[in-house]
């Protein structure tokens, strides 16, 4: 009868977990004279079998030399005396038990006892923490997020030891039941944004959340805007400063990218290097970066305006070479630029996912052969090729992938406007862009607004020791983050 009881318990659990799940059940006998029946249940692949063998089965099956008294305290007794695994929980609620088994814990059942013993045996193969592939940095840390939620949280915890660091765990996706964690510092976070975010996450009602990108789209405030609204990064050393500024980090299990929000426009043009290099060089580099953004958006359109409408504005020395290079070109300037731009986008898109061996061929065929042949067959003029080349290279200076795509796409409407209205079109394009950017708001935080105090870290970067307050645009709680400690270094005069 007793054996039947434990069998029925096992069956209930197997049914609840789904019969097709690779569930492993092992029945064991505990103690001697008389021995009692028990069973461990786990899902293959999610657990570390070494822990099960060494810390559960070995002590329970071999280590118990006397009989075990069955009462309400047995579970506690077993956990404290025999099971040597580091984390054990005793539960009486079956729903919690199912969830835990699905996350890679092992369940220990004992006959005639109501309680369930959950032992942490999470393991299985996960990727090691390694250099972030898509966001390399010269002087930043070599840590990159991995696909595992716990590991990612631990990466952040190692960098922020503040006792106010909060980690809230949520679940999204009806069927995928993806774990998600939001990380913030309690006394710094923008509470309105936090409430808003929680509300949005709880409202997400979908079958599955496959990646951080789709999750981002589900909670986005301006889903039709071309600009990315949340920063996603693989680097813990980008997330940590964001959390320190009062932002919220969202970690989704299964994705090596972590979202930080609310984000602002200029943030997407900052890199980890900006805070690891010397102030003056950083400012020059930032200037170059913003200059290249302007170049990407306007250079083709300016060139088009100059050769189509305002020839008088071309510098005198350039007029002759530009005109000569255009002799015999069959396409109109607009079509010429447009075709070349589209071609370059195709080349880039094609090269993005190619194995590195084939990518070489692509760069030779795309870059050298097509470029050369296009000029020689009088399809495009060499000057156009130069202009487009500069644009493409400048587009690589935008450090964030999302923003880089948005900026690149912006030059197409700009080109159309320039073609129809010349300088007026470029100015109109910029005006509409500024109005659009100014009207965006992200979790109650303006996407692009220049507060006097926040300008220290926007288009330029003030010395780090002068940034005494956190950006007020993100959160206005506990704004002071450091004191004028450098004043203490200063030597007195006549010393």
């Amino acid at each position, binding site marked *: 009868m007793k054996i039947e009881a434990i069998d029925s318990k096992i069956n209930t659990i197997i049914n609840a977990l789904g019969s097709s799940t690779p569930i492993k059940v092992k029945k064991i006998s505990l103690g001697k004279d008389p021995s009692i029946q028990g069973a461990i249940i786990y899902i293959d692949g999610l657990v570390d079998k070494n822990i099960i063998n060494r810390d559960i089965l070995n002590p329970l099956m071999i280590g118990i030399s006397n009989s075990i008294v069955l009462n309400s305290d047995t579970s506690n007794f077993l956990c404290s005396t025999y099971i040597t695994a580091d984390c054990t929980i005793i539960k009486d609620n079956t729903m919690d038990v199912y969830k835990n088994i699905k996350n890679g814990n092992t369940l220990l059942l004992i006959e005639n006892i109501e309680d369930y013993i959950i032992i942490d045996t999470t393991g299985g193969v996960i990727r090691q923490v390694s250099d972030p592939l898509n966001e390399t940095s010269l002087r930043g840390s070599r840590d990159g997020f991995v696909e595992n939620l716990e590991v990612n949280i631990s990466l952040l915890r190692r960098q922020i030891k503040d006792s106010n660091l909060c980690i809230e765990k949520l679940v999204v996706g009806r069927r995928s039941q993806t774990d998600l964690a939001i990380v913030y510092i309690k006394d710094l976070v923008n509470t309105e944004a936090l409430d808003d975010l929680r509300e949005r996450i709880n409202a997400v009602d979908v079958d599955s959340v496959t990646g951080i990108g789709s999750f981002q789209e589900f909670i986005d405030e301006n889903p039709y805007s071309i600009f990315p609204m949340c920063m996603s990064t693989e680097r813990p050393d980008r997330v940590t400063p964001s959390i320190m500024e009062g932002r919220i980090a969202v970690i989704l299990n299964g994705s090596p990218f972590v979202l930080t929000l609310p984000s602002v426009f200029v943030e997407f043009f900052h890199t980890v290097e900006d805070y690891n290099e010397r102030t003056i060089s950083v400012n020059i580099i930032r200037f170059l970066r913003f200059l290249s953004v302007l170049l990407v958006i306007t250079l083709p359109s300016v060139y088009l305006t100059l050769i189509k409408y305002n020839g008088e*504005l071309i*510098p005198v020395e350039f007029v002759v070479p530009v005109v000569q290079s255009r002799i015999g070109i069959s396409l109109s300037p607009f079509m010429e630029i447009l075709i070349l731009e589209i071609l370059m986008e195709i080349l880039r898109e094609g090269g993005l996912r190619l194995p590195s061996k084939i990518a070489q061929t692509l760069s030779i065929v795309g870059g050298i052969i097509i470029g050369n042949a296009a000029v020689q067959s009088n399809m495009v003029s060499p000057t156009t090729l130069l202009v487009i080349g500069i644009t493409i290279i400048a587009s690589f200076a935008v450090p964030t992938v999302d923003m880089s795509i948005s900026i690149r796409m912006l030059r197409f409407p700009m080109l159309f406007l320039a073609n129809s209205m010349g*300088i*007026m079109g470029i*100015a109109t394009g910029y005006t509409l862009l*500024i109005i659009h950017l*100014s009207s965006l708001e992200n979790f109650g935080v303006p996407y692009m607004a*220049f507060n*006097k105090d926040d300008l220290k870290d926007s288009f330029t970067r003030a010395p780090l020791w002068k940034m005494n307050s956190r950006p007020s645009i993100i959160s206005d709680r506990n704004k002071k983050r450091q004191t004028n400690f450098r004043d203490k270094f200063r030597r007195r005069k006549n010393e």
Partner: protein
Amino acid sequence: MNKKSMLISSSELFFILVGCIVGISSTSLPVDVVSIAKQDGWISTIIGGIYPLYIVLIGGIIIKKYPNSNIMNLSKAYFGKIIGNILNLLFMLQFLFYGVLVISSSSNQLRAYSIYFIPHFKMVMILAIVACYASIKGLKVLCRFAGITFFLLCLIIVASTVTFKSGSILNVKPFFGAGVPNILEGSIKSAFSYGNMELLLIIYPYVQQKKAILKTALISTLVIVFCYSWIVFTSIYFSGPDLVVKQLWPFSFVAESFKIPVVNNFRFIEMVIWIIIAYKTVSIEFYASTKILNSITKIKRKTICFLLLPIIFIIPLFMENEVIRREIAGKVIPWITLFNISYVTIIALLTLLIDKKKLINKKGEKPINEKI
């Protein structure tokens, strides 16, 4: 969304006040002033700054007493609904008229400078539609827009310092040589360019820090006066008083002297910046007029934007000729200025005289949770 973010900060107030006044028409400002005050035009411009200063100071009385109302509600409360609304309508028409003037002048100037291929009709249409779109977005967005254009304006001002290499100090000498009567007469001319400071009396309830309003407005007045007198001064310094009056847009001429090797001359960048600044000025003026009409009629402001769009589209079409436009402006603007000064002064005086308690139940004190 938090309520605080609905209001504008004092720096945003600064940007929008500067943005409302300093626009593309400042390139033609030196002509009017220099034709009377000669080489002392810049002194006249500084004196002309008394007009916005007066509006700010007298507005300070109203702001102090009714920090949550605005001039439209006060006028309705003092004069009754009908007369108050008629006065408000006149007040609105002046903003609309300024908007029309800016649209037509931008179109005329831009067509003269390098955008000759777009006809007046299309140019006006583009300007009107973009301005309408921007003002639909609301005050907050306009403030941010004005903030960015302020930095662009600074760029032009900085670029014009290059003229100090090629101009001559003899052009502005002798100081006070034109005689005090001429300088004063010129200052009246320049005062007309300072119109629209009255925007402060429409938007002040939406400012977060009520105590900082007056200070910010004063700073913005100073900045505007500085910009204008700088523009007049560099124009005279660069071209001399005789040449300034022979040009339509003397300051554009100055900014063009800034040569960068690859960009040839500054005209392209300058034109882009002036167009953006023109968009900003028209948008703010259009916003102001829709805001006033909104308080008169209680129609949704977005609808009003569409209702008024034909006006700023059609009237500029009759001002295709810059000389005619200036003639019309020269006839109308003095009356507008006179109306503004008297309107604001009367409201301020009534604010001082009439007891606050009497009005508290009327529309004088209105909560500011309406959409901005």
